[in-house]
């Protein structure tokens, strides 16, 4: 934990949006139908826009003269604070959608809580992002239901995706010392009502999708502290290539 909990908050929100956007954009040109290709690209774009806002604020509160771009392109994986679920590989289209849905169901109530932040800059970003995320969750929930309650093949794929991703959902909801400090300072919401909202939304959606909620068990953690899976290194190697190879490049 840095001595600036607000910096940590901005990195956690911004890095999660950035890594998920990078993952999602791997689909561009490869989605099963044109509308979904465009939908994935639009969601990735929204998340990149939100990243710019969060990392811009991170740079401002850090006060060391770094820009949002420098935070995105010049940090190694140990300095990234994204949730592990964001770096999970795409898998098939259903797997990507399930990851998006499980994240959206957290992102939405988290942003709602952040609109009441004691820091007006945080509240403003959350207010802006919430409007975009309301479309993300509407789309991802609709598609999880359509595919879960679809053909035997789509149902089986969605259940497999859910089982595979479930151990990565706990990290969003389990309070660590940074979360506690943020809540104490009024900068971020208590995660307990966020967790309750997440469970309620997920249970309702899975019921409609005829999918079985996995038994709660071991949950992977570490992303929020900079301990990542091997996947993040590959993501950053691709995303940061240009700025690493040509450090003075401008355009």
């Amino acid at each position, binding site marked *: 934990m840095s001595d600036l909990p607000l910096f940590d908050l901005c990195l956690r929100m911004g890095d999660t949006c950035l890594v998920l956007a990078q993952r999602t954009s791997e689909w561009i040109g490869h989605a099963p139908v044109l509308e979904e290709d465009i939908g994935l*690209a639009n969601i990735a774009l929204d998340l990149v*826009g939100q990243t710019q806002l969060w990392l811009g604020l991170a740079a401002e509160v850090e006060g060391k003269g770094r820009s949002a771009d420098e935070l995105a392109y010049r940090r190694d994986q140990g300095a990234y604070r994204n949730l592990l679920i964001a770096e999970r590989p795409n898998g098939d289209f259903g797997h990507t959608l399930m990851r998006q849905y499980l994240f959206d169901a957290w992102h*939405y109530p988290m*942003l*709602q809580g952040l609109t009441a932040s004691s820091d007006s800059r945080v*509240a403003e970003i959350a207010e802006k992002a919430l*409007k*975009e*995320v*309301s479309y993300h969750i509407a789309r991802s929930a609709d598609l999880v239901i359509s595919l879960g309650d679809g053909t035997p093949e789509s149902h089986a794929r969605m259940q497999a995706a859910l089982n595979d991703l479930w151990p990565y959902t706990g990290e969003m909801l389990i309070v660590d010392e940074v979360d506690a400090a943020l809540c104490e300072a009024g900068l971020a919401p208590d995660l307990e009502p966020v967790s309750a909202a997440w469970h309620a939304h997920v249970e309702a959606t899975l019921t409609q999708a005829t999918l079985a909620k996995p038994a709660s068990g071991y949950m992977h953690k570490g992303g929020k502290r900079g301990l990542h899976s091997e996947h993040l290194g590959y993501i950053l190697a691709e995303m940061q290539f240009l700025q690493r190879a040509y450090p003075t490049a401008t355009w």
Partner: protein
Amino acid sequence: MTTAPFHPAVEEIWSWLSDVPDPEIPVISLVDLGIIRDVSWQDGTLVVKVTPTYSGCPATSVINFEIERALRDHGIADLRLERQLSPAWTTDWISAEGRAKLTDYGIAPPVAGSSCGGGVLSNPVVGCPRCGSSNTEMVSRFGSTPCKAGYRCRDCLEPFDYFKCI
């Protein structure tokens, strides 16, 4: 030789800005779109506050460039653009004139009053901009730009863009 500072009234500046087209949808102006939130003189500098439509909209930097160019072309030397995030842009700020121009252009305008206040989406009845029928269906929540959704008319069978509400 010095000349007196050129500080035209803000009403005149608003009228200049109402001639600057949106780069993605050039039939409507930036003023019609409702993204220019304030114009004021502060200690001899013209300050224009602009709010983004979508946080990741790639047109944002082009929009700022077009505003600056238009104002410099009118002779404004000292000017500063500021980003204003709150209150977050809502499609309810698109002017009546802007809505009419969108329809003429083939884009169904956002249904007034259906913006997602607090993030709650409604599913308004969207009229077809070609034949006027309200017998339409959503094809995709995401369209050709971040601000649009894909729709189809069940009567004239044409696909069309809907400027979705946020």
